């Protein structure tokens, strides 16, 4: 609604012009009617100002459009004015002349449109004063034109008459010219032109200038517009004066900008290309694509005929061509046949940028000229990472002395970016590898956890609890329960493979399988361990060993027979004794000796079981747990803790032991795997 209204307001001035034509036909011949006519026309022009201020389409189309419009409108109008001046005769002059009316209408329309165009240029990079200055200029121009147009006879009667008409006119013109010049200094649009556009504008401006001033001179003389309406005549005259002044100053400004246009252009291009490159860097992690982008931009910005990137292959100690711009297939093939790294090694190991302005004349970098014949000048920039040189960026031109200082600087900047790209890609690759390894270790951890019994065995008269905490993703601790089919017997094993990590985990899996198989066939602890030792010491690396406790609960005879192969002792809590019994029969670790000594040293121990007794089997992870002060938890603390918990059910003893160790270690890093197995005798009816 508001929009349509504003469009209607634009129609108003035309209505006023129509009113003026009507006023023209009512010729009273008096002076007052002329005054009213001029006043109506002034109001009409004032009402037309929105045409200047609301040419919003200019913002979308950019300043080139405004410049083009100014150029063509001024020249066309100037030619037209020239033609009008030729046929200017008494016949067309006068207030009621149709020709005068149309020429005036045309002129004022052109002035309004051009003011819009100039306003657009002036308002580029606007400051707070920009719009104010421009408006002041327009309104004062309107006022002064009205005052001058309605005739100096009124001035003579005014209180200002003592100043004299000429002086007043002079003051008004001076004020206006000052405002014109002020506004004409607003030529920031020149900064945004590139060199070619600046040149075009310069020649265009040079051509335009005579036309602009011709227009001013046309309208400053007596012409049919003035005869139609003195106010409009003066207004249009001032307008063209402003246009001419603006064009002149803009042209001077352009001339000042021309010598640096090339440099300015370059800097813009450099900035743009570096920006483009760094924004590519942040999204692109494929080294080859990145290298292509770097080479392409480097060639464009330095205006090189060809450009290529070579990276050092650390394994083969040679340079690989990874990306290129404007190298023919033939040249690429030839390049690959040569190993630049070997030939130019002395030159290239200098680690500084090499600028060779006459490739053919000088002997430096002659390897390049062997496979690329038409090179005049070449720049080689080493890609320097923090530690070493990782490759080279080359730019070549057919002309000799083709590279300026700025080109070399720019290539250095590109090389720096290329280094970041290469390093980034490497980092990402290694972090991806790390992720994969972590994933695999997690899988290994899950697999190892699956090797441990998923639930506690049910043996009448006994409660059995166990826990195993690994320090790394995979560890060397294990425990197992193997029910034997007769006499209510259950084999319990706790083991610890020396070392840590994946290696220990593999041995652990192996020993678990073997013990499981041997237990079912041999059953008795000493027999099983002797056999297992003979087999395993052949498989184990010489610097690895396994400690084990292998015990067998005989539910029927109510006894526990076990062997200790180098493992931590067995702890036995009894209801009627305060002390914990530490039972440590002799026995070597599995893998320490391949048979004879192991066999002779291994001792089988038997414990008779009665209700209330609790057996604790553990690994050295429990006793070797350290607190932040570096102190070990130790066997003594373990025994004391066990003693304080012995009256509790097995599960609570287990939790109590873990809690005590947690408290002691104070969440410092876990050094080793930690395993507890608890066997509690609960059948109260059984006799001891």
């Amino acid at each position, binding site marked *: 609604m508001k929009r349509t209204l504003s469009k209607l307001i634009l129609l108003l001035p035309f209505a006023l012009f129509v009113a003026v034509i009507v006023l023209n036909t009512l010729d009273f011949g008096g002076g007052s009617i002329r005054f009213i006519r001029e006043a109506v026309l002034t109001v009409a022009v004032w009402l037309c100002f929105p045409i200047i201020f609301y040419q919003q389409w200019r913002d979308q189309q950019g300043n080139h459009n405004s410049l083009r419009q100014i150029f063509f409108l001024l020249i066309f109008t100037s030619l037209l004015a020239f033609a009008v001046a030729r046929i200017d005769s008494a016949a067309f002059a006068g207030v009621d002349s149709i020709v005068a009316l149309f020429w005036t209408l045309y002129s004022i329309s052109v002035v309004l449109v051009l003011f819009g165009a100039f306003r657009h240029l002036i308002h580029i990079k606007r400051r707070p004063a920009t719009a104010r200055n421009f408006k002041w200029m327009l309104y004062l121009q309107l006022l002064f034109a009205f005052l001058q147009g309605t005739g100096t006879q009124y001035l003579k009667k005014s209180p200002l008459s003592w100043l004299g008409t000429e002086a007043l006119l002079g003051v008004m013109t001076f004020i206006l010219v000052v405002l014109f010049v002020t506004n004409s200094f607003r030529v920031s649009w020149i900064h945004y032109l590139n060199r070619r556009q600046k040149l075009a504008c310069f020649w265009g401006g040079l051509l335009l200038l005579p036309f602009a001033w011709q227009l001013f001179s046309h309208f400053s003389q007596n012409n049919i517009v003035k005869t139609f309406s003195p106010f409009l005549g003066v207004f249009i005259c001032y307008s063209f004066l402003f246009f001419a002044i603006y064009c002149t100053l803009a042209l001077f400004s352009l001339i000042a900008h021309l010598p640096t246009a090339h440099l300015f252009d370059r800097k813009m291009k450099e900035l743009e290309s570096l920006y483009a490159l760094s924004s590519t860097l942040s999204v692109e992690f494929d080294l080859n694509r990145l290298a292509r982008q770097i080479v392409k931009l480097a060639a464009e910005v330095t205006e090189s005929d060809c450009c290529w990137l070579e990276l050092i292959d650390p394994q083969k100690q040679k340079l690989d061509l990874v990306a290129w711009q404007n190298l023919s297939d033939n040249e690429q093939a030839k390049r690959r046949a040569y190993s630049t790294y070997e030939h130019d090694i002395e030159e290239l190991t200098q680690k500084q940028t090499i600028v060779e302005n006459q490739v053919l004349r000088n002997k430096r970098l002659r390897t390049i000229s062997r496979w690329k014949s038409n090179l005049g000048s070449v720049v080689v920039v080493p890609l320097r990472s923090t530690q070493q040189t990782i490759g080279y960026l080359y730019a070549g031109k057919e002309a000799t002395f083709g590279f300026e200082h700025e080109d070399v600087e720019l290539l250095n900047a590109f090389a720096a970016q290329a280094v970041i790209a290469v390093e980034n890609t490497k980092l990402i690759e290694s972090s991806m590898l790390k992720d994969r390894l972590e994933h695999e270790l997690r899988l290994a951890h899950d697999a190892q956890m699956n090797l441990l019994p998923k639930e506690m065995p049910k043996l009448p008269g006994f409660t059995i609890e166990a826990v195993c905490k690994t320090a790394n993703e995979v560890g060397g601790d294990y425990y197992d329960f193997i029910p034997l089919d007769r006499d209510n017997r259950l084999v319990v094993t706790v083991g*610890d493979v*020396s*070392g*840590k990590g994946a290696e220990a985990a593999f041995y652990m899996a192996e020993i678990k399988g073997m013990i499981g198989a041997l237990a079912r066939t041999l059953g008795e602890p000493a027999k099983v361990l002797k056999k297992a030792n003979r087999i395993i010491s052949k498989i184990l*690396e*010489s*610097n*690895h*060993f396994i*400690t084990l406790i292998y015990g067998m609960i005989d539910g029927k005879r109510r006894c526990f027979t076990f062997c200790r192969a*180098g*493992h*931590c*002792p067995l702890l036995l809590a009894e209801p009627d004794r305060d002390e914990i019994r530490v039972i*440590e029969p*002799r*026995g*070597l*670790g599995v*893998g*320490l*000796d391949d048979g004879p*000594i192991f066999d002779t*040293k291994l001792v089988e121990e038997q414990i008779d079981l009665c209700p209330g007794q609790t057996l604790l089997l553990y690994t*050295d992870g429990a006793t*070797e747990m350290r607190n932040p002060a*570096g102190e*070990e938890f130790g*066997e003594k603390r373990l025994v004391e803790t066990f003693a304080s918990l012995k009256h509790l059910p097995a599960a609570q003893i287990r939790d109590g032991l873990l809690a005590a160790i947690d408290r002691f270690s104070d969440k410092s890093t876990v*050094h*080793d795997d930690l395993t507890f197995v608890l066997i509690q005798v609960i059948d109260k009816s059984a006799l001891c």
Partner: protein
Amino acid sequence: MNNFQVIRNDDDKVTTLRIAGFLDAHTAPMLEREIEKLLEEGRYRILVDFAELGYISSAGLGVFMGYIEQVRENNGDIKMCRMNDKIYRVFDLLGFPTLYDIVTDEEMARAKFVQSSQGRVDRQDN
């Protein structure tokens, strides 16, 4: 933290390795390198002084197991001395004392080297 150190001390026949600090999976390779160097030089009589050692893990124990065979094949031995109680406990649990000479002081260890070489000479004579 918990640095591990090996100080080597050669005399005519016996090389003494004084080890100090923490001997675990991370530091074991240092000791391995040192022993390998001795084997390359043909020094097979190795005396390890444990006086300054604070901790030994299973990986640390493995170092001695890894070379004992080669050393003994060359008429040498790895003997250990001056272990504190805690360290000795670790060796003892595993049954090392039945396989290795572990003695309280250095002189006794040297004497044992002399004995064993004489014994071997005697046997060869017979």
